[in-house]
């Protein structure tokens, strides 16, 4: 071992207790699925089965929606707002207390590095509950009229890339505003949501306020189309977002949609290059690139292209890919075989269309799903890898000469979720930020999230915001 190699530093899994199988969490209790069926959830770093979870069918959805309606009508909508808030404070505190347990479980089920689940996902999830808890008794100050009202029962469908954090983004504002919830976690990452059911138990949250049903897309569709649903909140692909928008047309349901992205990360020639390189790495390799707002299109000014790429490759060569439970790991496992296949398909298209591939030299473990950090240079705007969301650790590099050209290229996408700007010149940051058609702009930073900061996209990246006062409003009917 050389002086600069790390010894393995494995996080213990003794802290988690995974049951052999889980039912749906409905009306405050785990209940066997009416379908009688279960499906496995695996650890993507080992491909070993972690547990089996219930497969929701129409009867399961019926029961969950009925429980949520009952809790809404009889308990949650009648409770004084301050008391509602106190339940959310309790949940925030319990999440903090059990943070390590959640972090380990998230890493096992999702494949993300423990460093990220421990330092980002779980603390932010707790923060989301704490932030929204404080809103519960202040809704009349939220800019939605003197007495804004909840919608009622909300269907929430969340993705696999930040399982507990996305749960928090959805459940916290819904509960703070007085709605009740039927939540469906992603089929590959249900376990932290099911552990959250235990947090609800410890917090003594009234039965039926939060219901969790598991399943794949069909279960989600049953939930969205259920007549007992008043509002849909979805995070996932633009393709499914459009299906949801279509299926709720002609109904009274409203929707919040957080969908895909193909963010431009713009590096001007007057940027602090070393910092920018760190930002590029964080922008695209954070969470294996399984991030809707990932900085997947690097737009680098021509005059600094070679310097940036040289430094980027050096930095990428030092990224540690491997066991997600190792505290030194930077890049964990790709979440599923299906996602890995999609990344491989799109990167092959990159090769075929003439872009030049470079991957960091790293050892790929034998079991599990992995993809080495990869950068494509010589990418043109028509290449699929410049247009389609890869949702993996793959960066496409394009160049520009003038700021106007950077804007033109950055905005040349049906998406509009996020973008990055790197320059030391303040006026240029504000000029660029004002021209970019995207909902979240990071200047001299990237991939920062906070419950107080609205998140969401322009164009085909979705409808509405999550977080902040703006996100709260998505769960309130303005009564003027």
């Amino acid at each position: 071992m050389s002086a600069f190699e790390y010894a393995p530093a494995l996080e213990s899994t003794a802290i988690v207790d995974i049951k052999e199988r889980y039912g749906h969490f409905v009306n405050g209790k785990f209940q066997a699925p009416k379908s009688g069926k279960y499906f496995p959830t695996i650890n993507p770093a080992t491909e070993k089965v972690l547990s089996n979870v219930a497969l929701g069918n129409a009867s399961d959805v019926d029961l969950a929606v009925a429980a949520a309606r009952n809790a809404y009508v009889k308990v949650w909508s009648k409770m004084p707002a301050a008391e509602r808030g106190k339940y959310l404070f309790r949940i925030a505190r319990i999440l903090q207390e059990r943070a390590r347990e959640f972090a380990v479980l998230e890493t096992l089920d999702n494949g993300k590095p423990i460093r990220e689940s421990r330092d980002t996902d779980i603390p932010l999830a707790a923060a989301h509950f704490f932030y929204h808890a404080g809103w519960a008794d202040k809704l009349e100050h939220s800019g939605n009229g003197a007495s804004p009202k909840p919608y009622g029962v909300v269907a929430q469908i969340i993705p696999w890339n930040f399982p507990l954090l996305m749960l928090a983004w959805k459940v916290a504002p819904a509960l703070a505003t007085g709605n009740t919830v039927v939540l469906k976690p992603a089929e590959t990452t249900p376990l932290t949501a099911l552990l959250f059911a235990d947090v609800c138990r410890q917090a003594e949250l009234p039965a039926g306020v939060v219901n969790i049903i598991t399943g794949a897309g069909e279960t989600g569709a049953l939930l969205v189309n259920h007549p007992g649903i008043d509002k849909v909140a979805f995070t996932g692909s633009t393709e499914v977002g459009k299906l949801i928008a279509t299926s709720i047309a002609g109904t009274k349901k409203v929707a919040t949609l957080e969908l895909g992205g193909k963010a431009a990360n713009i590096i001007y020639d007057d940027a602090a290059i070393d910092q920018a390189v760190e930002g590029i790495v964080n922008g695209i390799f954070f969470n294996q690139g399984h991030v809707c707002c990932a900085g997947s299109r690097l737009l680098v000014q021509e005059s600094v292209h070679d310097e940036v790429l040289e430094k980027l490759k050096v930095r990428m060569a030092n990224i540690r890919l491997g066991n997600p439970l190792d505290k030194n790991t930077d890049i964990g496992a790709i979440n599923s075989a299906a996602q890995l296949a999609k990344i491989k398909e799109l990167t092959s298209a990159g090769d075929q269309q003439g872009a030049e591939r470079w991957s960091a030299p790293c050892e790929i473990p034998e079991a599990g799903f992995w993809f080495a950090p990869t950068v494509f240079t010589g990418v043109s705007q028509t290449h699929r890898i410049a247009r389609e969301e890869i949702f993996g650790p793959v960066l496409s590099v394009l160049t520009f000469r003038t700021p106007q050209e950077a804007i033109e290229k950055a905005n040349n996408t049906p998406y509009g979720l996020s973008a990055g700007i790197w320059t030391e010149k303040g006026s240029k940051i504000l000029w660029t930020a004002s021209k970019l058609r995207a909902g979240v702009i990071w200047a001299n930073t990237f991939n920062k999230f906070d419950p107080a900061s609205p998140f969401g996209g322009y164009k085909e990246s979705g409808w509405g915001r999550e977080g902040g006062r703006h996100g709260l409003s998505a769960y309130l009917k303005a009564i003027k």
Partner: protein
Amino acid sequence: MANENASRIDVLKTYKLFIGGAFPRSESGRVYEVTGANGKHLANPALASRKDLRDAVVAARAAFNGWSDATAYNRGQILYRMAEILEGRSAQLTTEISALEGVTPRAAALQVQESIDLLVWYAGWSDKISALAGSTNAVSGPFYNFSIPEPIGVVAILAPSSPSLLGLVGAIAGVITSGNTAVVIASEKSPLPAITFAECMATSDLPAGVVNVLTGSTTELAPWVASHMDIDAIDASGVSTKLLKEIKVAGAQNLKRIKVFGEVKSTARILDFMETKTVWHTIGI
């Protein structure tokens, strides 16, 4: 338009489309007859085609950068100027509304006055809406973080038939005060005030293409509006429930924001066609 001289023949207006600041006829050459509430012939306005719609969207998109980049003060003054010009056209609009809607000249005149005052109301919002809907956000970390509302882009308006002028003015003013540009499908039944109002806009220093007005069949044009990939949002207040559903289904192709409003005087008409942009910047030395 009282005729003082009984033997004089009125010079009647040809009602044409308003696209990119000009008043063309429909490329299709089509017109349709509009009659008053009493069944009497009033005019043969253009029956706009899908191609006219496309031309209008091109004009609206081309105008977007300039209009959204204009200072809010400037936009507010132009909306105010629209009110000034509308005031001067009161008599003509009163006549048109009265004939089309079958209301008394007094009721029609009141509608025109209300429309003028509504424009003044929206004019004042241009430089205030961001103070209402924006925020600085107390994030946990060394970052300056703020959110601002920005115009969404090109908004199509499917205008209601009644009140023909007031409903139209409220829709247009709410859309453009923030910097959006608009493609209006005028009420099929009552299109004349829309074109006369277009003549007001054309003489109000409103840049060409910011508002484009098409007359014709709403049921024919609405599906093309809904499926047009360069329209960002639709004010569908003027359509039936059945058509609204079709519009929402077709609009899902590019996730258009599709809204329906009740009151003409509402900040929702501004904010529902704006997007929130949040900017993070590091704080440090």
